[in-house]
């Protein structure tokens, strides 16, 4: 070999992301995720057909449920299965930095999660007869999906077995915490996402953005530190 790519370089991450996308398009997860992403559309359709008054705020509740499901279905399952089924042995024996394995998966899967989640939100509003949702709500939701995907990746690295189920459980608890009328709700991804999307009544976006970044950053750091020492 004379031509080498640097371990952990963008080329390696691109390769890993490409593999992840290829596997995703040929597996069942995309179909299952797509069905779940249609949840807001279903809700809006029922409301519209029964001629109830459409409320974007109520529709956002199902988007919060999706926040618990979609990252778990895509990121949690992908990272967890890779470690649990030991296909990671192929990757660990390669001259690549281990964080790049996680990076490649996230680069591939986060856009899918964001497109499905935000797309479901936009389509739900359309079907419900409302105007297009606000840009702030779309961007807030997208930031929530990015942060949640990073959290889920960290959890799945630490506890790969049943990674998807565990992360769904974590997010359901997060949903509950996010609804609590105390400062505890500040710790919840779902609360901060609602705040960014403009559904808490507080127009400030700085604090929720920082909170999401901190929560996601902590879990990402946990995941990266763990994966560096992981033995398979």
């Amino acid at each position, binding site marked *: *070999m004379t031509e080498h790519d640097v371990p952990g370089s963008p080329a390696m991450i691109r390769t890993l992301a490409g593999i992840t996308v*290829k596997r995703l398009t*040929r597996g069942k997860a995309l179909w299952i995720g797509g069905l779940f992403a249609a949840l807001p559309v279903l809700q809006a359709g029922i409301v519209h057909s029964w001629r109830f008054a459409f409320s974007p705020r109520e529709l956002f509740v199902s988007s919060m449920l999706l926040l618990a499901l979609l990252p778990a279905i895509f990121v949690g399952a992908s990272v967890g299965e890779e470690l649990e089924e030991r296909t990671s042995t192929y990757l660990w*024996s390669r*001259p690549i930095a281990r964080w790049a394995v996680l990076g490649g998966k996230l680069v591939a899967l986060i856009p899918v999660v964001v497109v499905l989640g935000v797309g479901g939100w936009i389509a739900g509003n359309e079907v419900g007869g409302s105007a297009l949702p606000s840009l702030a709500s779309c961007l807030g939701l997208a930031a929530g999906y990015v942060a949640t995907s990073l959290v889920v990746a960290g959890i799945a690295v630490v506890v790969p077995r049943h990674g998807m189920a565990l992360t769904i459980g974590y997010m359901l608890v997060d949903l509950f915490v996010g609804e609590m009328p105390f400062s505890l709700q500040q710790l919840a991804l779902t609360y901060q996402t609602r705040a960014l999307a403009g559904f808490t009544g507080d127009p400030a976006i700085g604090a929720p953005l920082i909170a999401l970044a901190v929560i996601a950053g902590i879990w990402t750091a946990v995941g990266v530190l763990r994966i560096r020492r992981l*033995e398979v």
Partner: protein
Amino acid sequence: MTLALSPSLPPAVSPAVATAVVVADRCSKWYGQVLGVSDVSWRLSGGIVGLLGPNGAGKSTLIKMMGGLLLPSRGVLTVHGRSPFHDTEVRRRIGYAPEHEHTWDELTALELVTAMARLAGVAAARAGRAAEDALAQMGMTAAMHRRIRGFSKGMRQRTKLATAIAHDPDFLLLDEPLTGVDPMARIDIVERIKQLGAAGKTVVVSSHVLYEIEALTSDILVIYRGQVLAEGNVFAIRSLIDRHPHRIRVECDRPHAIAAALAGEDHVVRISFERGAVVVETREPDTCYDQIAGAVLAAGVAVTALSSPDNNLGAVFEYLTGDGGRR
């Protein structure tokens, strides 16, 4: 007891150690309370080496430590002088085929091997060609565009081997590469592994099946319960096991004539008869062979076959592990 045919590791790194492919120095690995390997000191300089031991002996643990998947709990293991766990660069020189069957079944064989070549650092422009060559070497050209999901066990093994060689590493770690494959595929894979060895690559092949290793190489490392029992050439190892006499079987028309010639010798431990043959157990095989030849000539015995049932891995393994080899 460790039977070593090579000198023990010196305390300081000598030039010989520096040029060794693998150096394990008092290397141990625990999984919680479970012992993987214990206090292994070993130096591998090249060639094809068979890692032999029953299931759970510690073969995969040792291979994974060499492949950078596991970190020794105690001691040091280096490949080309570097830690394969910490040093990504040295892993470029390693090709690893795991023992498990799990792989990315959604991909075709060519996609998988190309991806693995890319991840091993082969440039994008060359990775596809390198993957095709590797699959061709493993006899997978016809099936390379098929998805792995539909592959037989033998095809999976070949594909795994192709992922290990696609980036042209000089050190190959093949963990149970012959498990579950049909006899024809087994012969073919053995030949291909031998070709890799002949091409100058250092190959470590693990197996719990004795004749698989025997077909590949005479250089072995015997592991049992996490410890190295013996290393070196299988025939030389056999000669070191002096508490187990060497058996020589002579098929001839007059077995009793040969038995009579050898009966009074000190090195002869036991003589027994089988249909048309005499079996001599001796502590000095070379002397015994000479005396058998003399007896044959002196008595005019017609010999139809002369064999040493001990000169195979099965016998050595049974001797070294007690009942381990008889399972």
